[in-house]
């Protein structure tokens, strides 16, 4: 039966592809791209199948080498991990299809390395999602981290330094996670997530466990770019090649958010955590601060990629805010926003890639309204995603914010409500600034070379346009069918201890 192997198959396929790509590239350079797309497509298919199985027939446990959980490693496809693996592989598939041309354009000559590392990145990320073992999670975390450090190191001349900073901070984050895990392991004696959560109520003195958990949250917060641990993100995303950014930005932080959800809702009793410790409140407040800070910083940027990077800091804040609410509505908001933001950010970064390939830059003041005519579809996709980011119905972004507002009001947390409102307005400010440049005649006469470049350019090729448009369409579909998504996929994953 193939279905029961799905938890293993997803990361294993990526690993296999990573091993095959260097060999394939010896035969024919283009084969590495094809192989990467095929492997991701296959994994997406597995993930969808897994999600269907989990929704109808219950969760899948896979015991590697047949050893029972506390002794061996376990992979689990439960509603949460199945949901995340579907959209992580789905967005990655679109980003990789799009990457074909961008890689040839921006990091030509090392495409084999790019695709092999992309496969390792996805192996790591999908492994983090499916694994049920806290140490195995660390191993996958490091695989994905190493791959993303090196993917980010190629780009403009400043890329290696920003990758180095990312590496030092990311490694520190992983060290924090491992130290926290040591505290938990020494107090509980197990590494299996389900086992730990089932033994925790017996632990008399929970202080080391809570400190361990805080250290793990700190480490994951670094990976997730939770304010004020976001310093690495803007430089890393800006200087890397568009292909690498488009692949890492939408899903890297989301998987970190997934781990945070796992730790704070499944490892410990979320209600205990909320009522007895300040940890969720801290995470929520940092999220709120990040929403404001990221939005304000995004407003000041002239470079589209950098603006989007700061916007990511803000959007990660939304997820953290939902997690910090530690309530069913907060959980729904955080999960749905992870999905929505992955699609929105992917769409925006893909359009940026289109501009870079066709115009050679993505600097805001140099975009002119001729693009509206010469690249209409890219501009339309950008508009859709931008409006969704601002949170206007019926696009997807509105609904995740809606659940977050509902959750904040339910707890009478008016500060969070105010921050949500303010951050949406700030989003509007910086996204409409871009839209004005794309659609309206500029007031100051623009540089002639820019006008000529925009007028002479053509719409991006189909292999780049199709993924962009699919994502833009997905935003509308996700928005319209959000209630279905929530009731079919997200409700079953809410931990029963939260009382829903």
């Amino acid at each position, binding site marked *: 039966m193939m279905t029961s192997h799905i938890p293993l198959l997803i990361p294993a396929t990526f690993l296999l592809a990573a091993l095959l790509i260097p060999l394939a590239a010896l035969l024919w350079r283009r084969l590495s791209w094809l192989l990467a797309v095929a492997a991701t497509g296959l994994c997406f298919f597995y993930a969808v199948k897994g999600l269907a199985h989990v929704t109808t027939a219950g969760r899948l446990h896979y015991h590697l080498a047949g050893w029972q959980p506390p002794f061996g490693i376990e992979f689990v496809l439960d509603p949460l991990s199945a949901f995340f693996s579907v959209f992580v592989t789905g967005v990655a598939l679109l980003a990789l299809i799009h990457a074909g041309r961008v890689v040839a354009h921006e990091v030509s000559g090392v495409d084999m390395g790019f695709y092999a590392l992309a496969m390792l990145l996805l192996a790591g990320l999908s492994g983090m999602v499916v694994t049920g073992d806290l140490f195995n999670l660390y191993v996958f975390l490091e695989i994905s981290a190493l791959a993303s450090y090196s993917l980010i190191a190629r780009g403009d001349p400043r890329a290696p330094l920003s990758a180095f900073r990312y590496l030092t901070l990311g490694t520190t984050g992983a060290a924090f996670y491992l130290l926290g895990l040591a505290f938990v392991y020494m107090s509980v004696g197990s590494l299996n997530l389900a086992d730990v959560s089932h033994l925790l109520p017996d632990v008399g003195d929970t202080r080391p466990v809570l400190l361990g958990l805080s250290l793990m949250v700190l480490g994951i917060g670094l990976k997730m770019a939770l304010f004020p641990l976001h310093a690495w993100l803007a430089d890393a995303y800006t200087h890397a090649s568009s292909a690498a950014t488009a692949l890492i930005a939408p899903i890297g932080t989301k998987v970190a958010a997934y781990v945070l959800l796992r730790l704070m809702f499944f490892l410990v009793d979320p209600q205990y955590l909320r009522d007895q410790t300040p940890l969720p409140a801290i995470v929520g407040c940092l999220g709120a601060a990040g929403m404001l800070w990221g939005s304000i910083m995004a407003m000041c940027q002239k470079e589209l990629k950098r603006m989007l990077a700061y916007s990511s800091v803000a959007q990660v804040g939304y997820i953290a805010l939902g997690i910090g609410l530690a309530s069913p509505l907060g959980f729904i908001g955080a999960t749905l926003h992870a999905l929505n933001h992955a699609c929105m950010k992917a769409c925006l970064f893909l359009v940026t890639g289109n501009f870079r390939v066709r115009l050679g830059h993505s600097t805001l003041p140099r975009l002119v309204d001729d693009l509206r005519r010469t690249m209409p579809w890219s501009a339309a996709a950008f508009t859709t995603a931008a409006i969704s980011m601002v949170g*206007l*119905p019926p696009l997807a972004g509105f609904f995740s*914010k809606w*659940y977050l*507002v509902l959750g904040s009001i339910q707890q009478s947390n008016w500060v969070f409500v105010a921050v949500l*409102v303010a951050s949406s*307005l700030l989003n509007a400010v910086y996204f409409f600034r871009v839209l004005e440049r794309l659609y*309206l005649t500029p*007031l100051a006469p623009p540089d002639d070379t820019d006008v000529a470049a925009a007028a002479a350019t053509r719409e991006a090729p189909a292999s780049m346009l199709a993924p962009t448009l699919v994502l833009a369409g997905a935003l509308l579909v996700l928005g319209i069918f959000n209630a*279905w998504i929530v009731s079919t996929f997200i409700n079953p994953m809410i931990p029963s201890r939260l009382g829903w």
Partner: protein
Amino acid sequence: MPVTHESVIPLLAVLAPLAAIPLILLSSRRPNLREFWTLAAAFTACGLILSLLPGVLAGRTVAYDILTISPGIALSLRVDPTGLFFAIICSSLWILTSFYSIGYVRGAGEKKQTRYFASFALCIGATLGIALSANLLSFVIFYEMLSLGTYPLVIHKETRESYRSGRMYLTYALSAGLLLIVATAWTWALAHNLDFRPGGFLGGVLADEGAARALFLLFIAGVGVKAGLMPLHSWLPAAMVAPTPVSALLHAVAVVKSGVFGVIRVAGFVFGPATMQAFGLDTILAAVAAVTIILASVIALRQDNLKKRLAFSTIGHLSYIVLGVALLSPEGFMGGLLHLANHATTKIALFFCAGAIYVNLHKTEISELDGIGKVMPWTMAAFTVGVLGLSGVPPINAFVSKFYLCKGAVSSGQLVFLAVFLASGLLNMAYFFPILHRAFFRPGGAGLHGHSEASPLMVVPIVIVAVLSLVLGLYPNALVHFFDLARGISQSVMAGAAAPLAGLAP
């Protein structure tokens, strides 16, 4: 309980303008075909809306749940008398405005006409959605769509001034939308229900006075921006940089009336008169509206730009409706509803005239209007009808609604507001009559030679709205039973019961 029927007609009515958008965009190179889609959508939408009228008059409610958009909340449309009332006004005036628009944009040689017509269709679709929304969340969704759809129209001229106005408009509209979302979420947290109900559904659940006031203020701030309540009004005069048909239909009817309609929904169908009274919310609303009426009229006196003067007049008249609602008496409520319709026909006539003058003579300031009554007799005759109506002179329709508003003020025993209505009527005359004086009794300059009436595409709609105002003044119940509808609605809201409309059918 009124019988509720399921029917896709309301959905089709909302979708008709929205479906026209891709067709308009696709036929951007063939202007005649493009305009055909606009007109086709306008007639379809209006026909569908009117086809619902007999059923509603007979006391049937038609509803359609499109889909669930949040657990427990559906995106749903329901044709109750209130919604239908507003939908009829919008959809029928859209037909006239479409003809007028074609004449206007071609006459004025506007650029990016495709974007203009597409945005216009989006706005109308959203407004019909607002009118027919069955619950608050659906209302919010269409409300936000409307905000977004109006933006391209406001910045249409693409000048520095229009960009500034566009940003201002967007800031106001989006902030208001967010406040409305928060208010809606709060309501859901309190009542676990968002369906509009005559007489309100918050009655039993609001206990704390502070919370009630805060929630109400959030709501009023949310809808009050579009309704031009002071001090949230300043986007409206700024938005007058838009082409005149936009000012006419959107900034005198659809957009601003959506705000006022929101006030009606919030006051009559979410809070309900009893709750409003219990927490003193009616006083807050009435005070804001009264201040707005007087201040807007005074400011209008000082405007020389014709469209700006009309804009401030609009702000004042919108608050008539709000004040009528806030009086919490059946006559006041009914007068407010009637004014919603009557102000629409009269004000749109005035804006149409302003646009015709601009396209024909390129004049925008009142001080330039000397003697144009002889050049454009039909236009200025229609203008006169509108002016007389808004000043409250019988037999124009706005007299009827003003009469009921005054009656409402008397019957609720708040004579202060009667004084406000009367004073404002005088102020209306004070800022409108000088225009007539200039147009008809001052000699025209040399610049007027060789000019005559504007194109028939513009003049005919102008005359039609003027005649409409007159007919509705003489026979308030003519054509679409506005009078019966308004009376039924106000009774049902005040009684807090199901609509006792049955039996009113002709």
